[in-house]
């Protein structure tokens, strides 16, 4: 298969970017999108041209490293990660536009590579139960109904790729933050810090400069893990309860139910 690629080239964060056109020929339809880019890079090396920088690691859809916007859609046409997008998903001869995940909070490092460390800082604000290493209670002493576990897991599977932010017209990170809050706040282990978690994570999210939610739902539609908008409802609820019931003079209250 042959393709024309319009790839975003940007030397570093400060530089203005632009699109550069490339053609690739003889691509195996079973090749993944990233393997197609590998081949392009191998050729560029032979032609003594600078290769296209892009991120990937696991190449099986779980690490969340790959982060291309393909034809205006974060990760591409099939609601799977960029690395799980295959050339058979495109028409032979097609022109494909490739650019980085864009958001003010994700500065471009080079070409298609961005800095998503803002997401780590949101987790730092409260995305943990607080259990430090040491003797812990016997897990079966705290049964978790399978339905609850499943719901928590549906949120916990977030791979932190940031496609939700890239897709959101407001550059919001509500799906990401909501997924973590939902995961931990549903489980008995997450109760001790339940309220604080919602408070601090939302605060950090705002501080990083992510936008606010207008319930467009685009985030969920590009999420390769198909995380549902419900996590945003949950986040809104948890945050409101936590914020409105906290007396600033007192130590943070526990909102366990």
């Amino acid at each position: 298969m042959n393709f024309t690629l319009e790839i975003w080239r940007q030397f570093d964060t400060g530089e203005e970017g632009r699109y550069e056109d490339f053609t690739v020929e003889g691509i195996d339809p079973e090749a993944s999108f990233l393997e197609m880019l590998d081949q392009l890079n191998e050729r560029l090396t032979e032609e003594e041209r600078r290769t296209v920088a892009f991120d990937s690691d696991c190449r099986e859809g779980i690490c969340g490293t790959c982060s291309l916007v393909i034809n205006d859609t974060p990760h591409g046409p099939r609601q799977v990660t960029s690395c799980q997008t295959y050339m058979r998903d495109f028409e032979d001869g097609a022109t494909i536009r490739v650019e980085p995940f864009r958001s003010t909070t994700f500065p471009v490092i080079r070409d298609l590579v961005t800095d998503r460390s803002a997401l780590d800082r949101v987790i730092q604000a409260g995305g943990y139960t607080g259990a430090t290493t040491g003797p812990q209670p016997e897990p079966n002493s705290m049964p978790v109904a399978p339905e609850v576990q499943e719901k928590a897991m549906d949120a916990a599977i977030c791979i932190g790729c940031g496609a939700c932010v890239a897709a959101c017209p407001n550059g919001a990170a509500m799906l990401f933050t909501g997924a973590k809050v939902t995961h931990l706040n549903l489980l008995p282990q997450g109760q001790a810090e339940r309220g604080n978690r919602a408070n601090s994570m939302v605060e950090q999210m705002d501080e990083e400069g992510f936008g606010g939610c207008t319930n467009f739902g685009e985030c969920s539609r590009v999420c390769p893990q198909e995380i549902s908008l419900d996590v945003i409802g949950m986040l809104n609820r948890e945050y409101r309860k936590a914020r409105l019931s906290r007396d600033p003079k007192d130590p943070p209250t526990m909102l366990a139910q």
Partner: protein
Amino acid sequence: MVEFWRSTIGKKTFVAVTGTILVGYLILHMVGNLNSLFGPTGAEPRVDWYAGWLRELGEPLLPFAGALWIVRAILLGSVIIHITGVVQLRFRNRDARPARYPARKIGRSWESGVMMTSGILLAAFIVFHILQFTTLTVDVTPLHHEQVYFNLYNAFQEWYFVAIYLVALILIGVHLRHGIWSLVQTLGLDSPARNRGIRYGATTLTLVIVVGFALVPILFWTGLLDAPEPPAATITAIAGGLTG
């Protein structure tokens, strides 16, 4: 509360709560308006009686028209908070997003994309609407204090007023089809099991509101509602009808 307002979620919650108040008011308002459908029933049309009743509400606990003024204050406050909230959020969101991004739409409803436009046009309409039926400033057609039926009848004999109101109702529909669903989500009242229902519910409620309001201008214009008695002696009113 201050911190709550400062956060994106907090602000949005205010928008949703004020939105809910406004929707709630719209429903009451619509039901009130439907009193016109009783026609010019004798000396005092039903809708005029209703307007008067609204003013007397709460008496003697409250002064005459006191309840009305409380409602108005709440509405005004709500509109101010609603608009301040959305405008501030809009600026924030713009900053979070580089301008050049093409942002393909991936299945979001078009109504959700025009909330600001529909909102601003709505605001303009609300101002016009108050100037017409409350303060009676826009007196293109004859207007009299406390004579709601008379005022409505005359206004809606003109095709352009009917058109303006119908367009405004479409705007309300556009704003609320996303808005009502959105407020449920913002307030976190959603749940996976209920979400489909909530979507349909939002659309249905929007339709009810729009159709309910639309009946009044349409029925007047098509002549299905009779002309009122000639105006009685003008009573000086403190304020216009709530319906106005």
